[in-house]
């Protein structure tokens, strides 16, 4: 069962509504850019993600919210195949992602983690890392362009050990964008940042997703952040998709 991303007001589901049904009729001609089909993952008998089917369109931000241990990050990790689903699959532009090599898939489905995890060295080396893995050398001007885009102009030669949390997260974002991904996965990218940095990163995400027409899924604990960023929100509980729909309605559905 899937839910179209451009479903409207009533396209909200809850666990109590089982069997889950999208209330709004699905538009027949919707183009599917990213689709999960009955995605599940169990580890040692424990369910991390259970039968999650969603769709995301280009230019859309989908927030993933839910209590700790609900399977939000586990779900995100399945999307770029950092973990393997025990059943179900993901379609990227209608292509089963298992038919794409993991390295190509991860370039197309970029991920920014909760912690920046920068590699020792300069900011420039970090940004050039991804393209270099597929034989592309980024020109200094391209690196500078990415740094300008994330609000860190002129810092290419700075060592990453001297960065603040917010700066490091911006570099992590630029490093992911250097691969020109079609999908951007954000796993609580602002949870370790102060309020000023959060606001800056949020503006950055909104701007980049709009200008590049990317699909973006963001895991967040912060419901107001979901409201600020995402057109739609999905709620996860105990590994299951509990509700999905327009952010305001999902978050205020009680």
């Amino acid at each position, binding site marked *: 069962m899937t839910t179209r991303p451009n479903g409207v007001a009533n396209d909200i589901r809850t666990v109590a509504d089982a069997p889950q049904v999208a209330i709004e009729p699905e538009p027949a001609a919707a183009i599917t850019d990213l689709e999960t089909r009955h995605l599940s993952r*169990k580890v040692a008998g424990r369910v991390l993600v259970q039968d999650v089917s969603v769709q995301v369109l280009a230019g859309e931000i989908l927030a993933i919210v839910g209590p700790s241990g609900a399977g939000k990050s586990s779900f995100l990790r399945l999307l770029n195949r*950092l973990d*393997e689903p025990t059943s179900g699959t993901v379609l990227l532009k209608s292509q089963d992602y298992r038919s794409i090599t993991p390295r190509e898939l991860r370039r197309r489905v970029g991920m920014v983690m909760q912690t920046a995890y920068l590699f020792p060295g300069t900011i420039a080396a970090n940004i050039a890392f991804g393209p270099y893995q597929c034989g592309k050398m980024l020109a200094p001007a391209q690196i500078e362009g990415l740094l300008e885009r994330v609000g860190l102009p002129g810092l290419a030669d700075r060592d990453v050990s001297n960065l603040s949390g917010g700066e490091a997260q911006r570099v992590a974002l630029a490093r992911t964008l250097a691969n020109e991904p079609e999908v951007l996965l954000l796993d609580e990218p602002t949870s370790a940042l102060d309020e000023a940095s959060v606001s800056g990163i949020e503006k950055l995400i909104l701007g980049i997703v709009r200008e590049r027409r990317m699909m973006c899924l963001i895991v967040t604990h912060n419901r107001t952040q979901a409201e600020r960023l995402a057109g739609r929100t999905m709620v996860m509980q105990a590994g299951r998709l509990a509700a999905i729909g327009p952010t305001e309605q999902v978050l205020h559905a009680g």
Partner: protein
Amino acid sequence: MLAELQNSIGDDVLTGLAQAGGAIALCAAVVALCRWQSVHVEREAVVSMARGLVQMVLVGLVLALLLHGRLLIGCLILFMMAIAAAITAAQRLKGMAGALPLCFWSIAAGAGTVIAAMLATRSLRPDISMLVPVGSMIIANAMNACAQAIERLRAEILAHVGQIEAGLSLGAEPAVTVAPYLQSAVYASLLPRLDMMKSLGLVWIPGVMAGMVVSGISPVYAGIYQFIIVAMILAASGITGLVATVLMRSRAFSAAAQLTIRSAETMASSRASGQAR
């Protein structure tokens, strides 16, 4: 054969056992001292010493029996030693599937290559009395190098899961993401052997040289030969460390380039992913 065995058990064996008793008494005193400082190694010390003594007496008996045996028997003894070494080293990788073959092939590659090279260059005589003692030294050091390399690599991977997965998420080859940790693991496994080489003759005069001098061989030649042995130990350790870390790297990732030794949770997941594929 029995006559050889009887000849080897003479007065010197009784003297040796008496001396071993003295050594055990000194160790017991140290254990008591440790206990006084609340360092409890009593059980381990008793078991280790009992095992060590029994094993060495048995090895002596076997050597006495086989001293003039065929080269093939010597090779078989070394093979058994390599298996025992692999079992010991594999205990550092509890919970990891395929740890025993990983350790065996690493030790066999390191020790085997070096022993073959020594035989080919005639720096090792192809008879049991020479092959087994020298071979065992090389295997023992290969075992230590293997254990140190895999333990260090595992610890490095577990300490850098975030960086490794960040690299994977950017489309890097698994080998690229763990390259710095593999290098530091091999280096760490070689460090004791490099120190051993540096301190050769200054801090210690190893047993082979001492034995050769006692048996009347030129001290200069004995010194050179001891250097050869330590150099071969270093070479065997290097090969073992490299092979062990490369084999472990291949086991650290699934076919879909997912890190599988991230934690106990991920260990289980790699089995699940195998089923999924």
